[in-house]
């Protein structure tokens, strides 16, 4: 537990009988860049709010940098930089004034970092925050978070509204100044391509539950798309088979483990395995979170039959 920046144990958060977070056990190793992925309403922001002390868990607990949430929240806040999903700061203050307001809270604050990142992101420092566009507001929020020189950064949609150059600069900063200096970064984002580049750990949350948590390298080396042709191919999902997509005699399997063994088994059954190919993070994510059985021309008839027989 000591080398975990964040350790959450069976977190539960219930909002009017809806479980936003459901027995979530999250493990973010120190020094890692952890991509926290999920659909809208999956529970990402709820989890983050619990870690930051903005909401109390209904059950379960967590430690952040070794400190318990709730009880030792101030110690956590001293060492954690946070960018919230809603990039809201005091509207009447300029970025320069916001810096002045924020730096008083943090002994490790670096004014050099403020100057450097203001330059890097081309942040307008003298306009009132309320008058800035979303992209510029994000830049100011990032600036305040980065200048803290914190051990842990929790970033919820940190590239909201940023143009491609801004996103690129952000990626470089994460690679060079954050991961490069051993800081831990938790990024909650929908930008899967960016996460795929910069993260070394990934956690996928859906309906408040953690579907997958592993090194990105491992995920990408174990998930495979197997295309096979033959009669009587297995149609059902299993622990290893995430999804099955069939079209006549052709079948596409998305397998999360032991792909080679499964392919061999198919060959033993007389099928022709035409392809065992790797998957990108986007495809893996989509396969994991899609619940509906896809309706292809192959099994549409079966589905229709099943529906009519249940009426």
């Amino acid at each position, binding site marked *: 537990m000591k080398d975990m920046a964040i350790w959450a144990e069976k977190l539960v958060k219930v909002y009017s009988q809806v479980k936003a977070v459901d027995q979530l056990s999250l493990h973010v190793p120190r020094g890692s860049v952890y991509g926290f992925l999920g659909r809208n309403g999956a529970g990402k922001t709820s989890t983050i*709010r619990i870690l*930051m*002390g*903005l*909401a*109390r868990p209904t059950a379960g607990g967590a430690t952040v940098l070794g400190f318990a949430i709730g009880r030792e929240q*101030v*110690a956590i*806040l*001293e060492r954690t930089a*946070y960018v*919230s999903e*809603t990039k*809201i*700061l*005091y*509207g*009447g*203050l300029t970025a320069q004034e916001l810096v*002045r*307001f*924020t730096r*008083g*809270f*943090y002994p490790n604050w670096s004014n050099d970092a403020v100057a450097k990142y203001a330059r890097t992101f081309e942040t307008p420092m003298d306009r009132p925050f309320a008058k800035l566009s979303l992209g510029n507001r994000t830049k100011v929020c990032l600036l305040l978070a980065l200048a803290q020189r914190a051990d842990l950064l929790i970033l919820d949609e940190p590239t909201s509204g940023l143009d491609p150059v801004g996103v690129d600069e952000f990626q470089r900063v994460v690679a060079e100044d954050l991961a490069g200096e051993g800081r831990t970064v938790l990024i909650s984002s929908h930008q899967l391509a960016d996460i795929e580049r910069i993260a070394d750990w990934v956690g996928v949350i859906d309906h408040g539950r953690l579907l997958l948590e592993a090194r990105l390298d491992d995920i990408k080396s174990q998930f495979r798309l197997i295309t096979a042709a033959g009669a009587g191919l297995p149609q059902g999902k299993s622990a290893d088979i995430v999804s099955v997509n069939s079209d006549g005699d052709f079948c596409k399997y998305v397998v999360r483990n032991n792909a080679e063994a499964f392919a061999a088994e198919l060959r033993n059954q007389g099928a022709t395995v035409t392809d065992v190919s790797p998957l990108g993070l986007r495809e893996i994510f989509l396969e994991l979170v899609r619940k509906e059985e896809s309706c292809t021309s192959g099994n549409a008839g079966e589905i229709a039959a099943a529906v009519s027989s249940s009426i």
Partner: protein
Amino acid sequence: MYFWKCWRDSRGRFVINLMLVSAICALVIIMEAKFGGPASYQMSKPASGVENMWATVGRMVLGGLVSLVILFGALTFGAGSIGEEFKEQTLGFLFTRPRRRRFLVWTCWLVGACELLVVIFLGVVVIFGGLTYLSGRVYTWRLLTAVVPLLVGALAVYTMTYFMTAVARSSEKGISFGLGILMIDLLLPVAAYFWHRQLTSIWDFMRTGCAWAAGSARAFPVEQFIIYAALTMGFVLGAQLVLERMEV
């Protein structure tokens, strides 16, 4: 840092209240100069019964106005300070700074309390200075004791509105509640009278303060100060508890 920020936000309110109170107090002095003061200091004798009546009416109106302006100030300060955070939805940012929430709550409260003190003190000092100047002799120091009941009354209203704003999460609702309580507070002693009970209301504090400013030695039970001071502290603690437990 947060103290500076709260002060910055409330600057506008503060200045307006200062000007209003100064203006009203200046009017009081002019009135007294024209129509003569109460028994403790006589600057000129009213010429006729009519003028005397106008003077009395004017004195009542102005006295009431002073109370109203101070209480109005207390209401807007109470709703404005913490209400600002709710309006801008910046609590998510504020509460993720490394400070205990109670520290932030008390800091915010303190800024408004100090501003109220300055406003009331200034008003009283304006009257004190003006009357001293006009009457040609140093006016009785008892005038400055008028600050105490005015401050206690105003702080009670301020803190109660502060608490209501925190509970309702909105400055508009906070002010409405505050106004509502003040109206009830106006009527309660009347109702209590019918049940043969004495009830000290906020308005009593204001009247006493104005009376003392006018130089009259009106009696006021000391324990009421303690009760209302305790009530005020209770409301701040209440606001603290509400905000500590609040999910943002």
